[in-house]
């Protein structure tokens, strides 16, 4: 009985800690649906994408790339490159979930996102178990799918001008994701600016979808050096 109570408490705490993600995910997934449908995806395709991916940046990038006429191979490569960061995050998360049975880790791994990683990394060791992370991942996944479905429903109701204005949402999300890191470490801003510059220059010569892939890789390589630099002056 005690064990069951413990599991429930952990699960509920995970759900509760995920509420900010829910609040953030609803408008983003909603914007995703609206933008995706405008790009030409069917509503069913949007929902399938959210169910199978649970990856905001990749899904929005895919839609953006489809809009500029990119092919499937380019989009899959861009998706891989964008998601390579999850390798590090998942390494960290799985390390902290080391006592969790392996078969369960295969399932929980699907729930590793920037947000769930960020939240569990701030938790004490006692919360690093499958119940807490399961609750956290579940509310994240639920709100992502829920927002996507909601977006496909309300797209017929909200006016087109508002729909097109919502495409700023994804850029605002990216800015909102970056800013805390820039606050913590000003060198991050340099990395961002270098990559923006590379992307802008390359974008004049090659397709913008490939420019993003190249800028991410080159920016990552140059950025690693920037982040390792010692502060010049205090």
């Amino acid at each position, binding site marked *: 009985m005690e064990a069951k109570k413990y599991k429930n408490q952990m699960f509920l705490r995970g759900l509760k800690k995920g509420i900010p993600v829910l609040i953030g995910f609803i*408008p983003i997934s909603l914007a995703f649906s609206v933008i995706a449908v405008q790009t030409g995806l069917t509503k069913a395709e949007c929902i399938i994408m959210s169910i199978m991916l649970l990856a905001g940046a990749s899904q929005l990038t895919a839609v953006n790339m489809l809009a500029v006429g990119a092919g499937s191979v380019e989009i899959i490569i861009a998706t891989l490159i964008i998601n390579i960061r999850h390798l590090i995050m*998942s390494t960290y998360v799985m390390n902290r979930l080391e006592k969790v049975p392996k078969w369960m880790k295969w399932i929980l791994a699907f729930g590793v996102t920037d947000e769930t990683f960020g939240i569990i990394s701030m938790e004490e060791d006692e919360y690093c178990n499958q119940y807490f992370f399961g609750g956290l991942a579940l509310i994240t996944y639920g709100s992502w799918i829920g927002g996507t479905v909601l977006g496909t429903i309300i797209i017929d109701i909200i006016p087109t001008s508002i729909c097109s204005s919502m495409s700023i949402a994804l*850029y605002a999300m990216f800015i909102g994701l970056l*800013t805390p890191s820039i606050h913590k470490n000003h060198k991050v801003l340099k990395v*961002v600016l270098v*990559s923006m510059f590379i992307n802008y220059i390359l974008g004049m010569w090659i397709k913008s979808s490939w420019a993003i892939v190249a800028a991410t890789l080159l920016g990552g390589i140059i950025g690693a050096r920037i982040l*390792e630099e010692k502060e010049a002056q205090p």
Partner: protein
Amino acid sequence: MSVNENILLMILGMSVVTYIPRALPVAILNRLNLSKQVEGVLKAIPYAALGALIFPGILSVNSQKLIVGVVGGTVAVILAYLKLNITFVICGAVAAVIMLQVYIL
């Protein structure tokens, strides 16, 4: 509710390359240590990726009027810099762009 076969295949491919980085540590953890250099690059990649995703794409929010993207981006930067929750950053930028497009331009 129709689904295009090619799009479905693309989503399948995307889901595979999305799951692999998430699941790989489960398979190989404790068996392989990444070199310091690779780790450094992976650490910088999210910043580089987000930077490349923001600019110059943000200008295409309204491809006829570049100012729309600039204003939306500036509002987002200010709100994010004030350490507001990401939801308010998004809502603020969306509201600013709606007002700009509907009432001013």
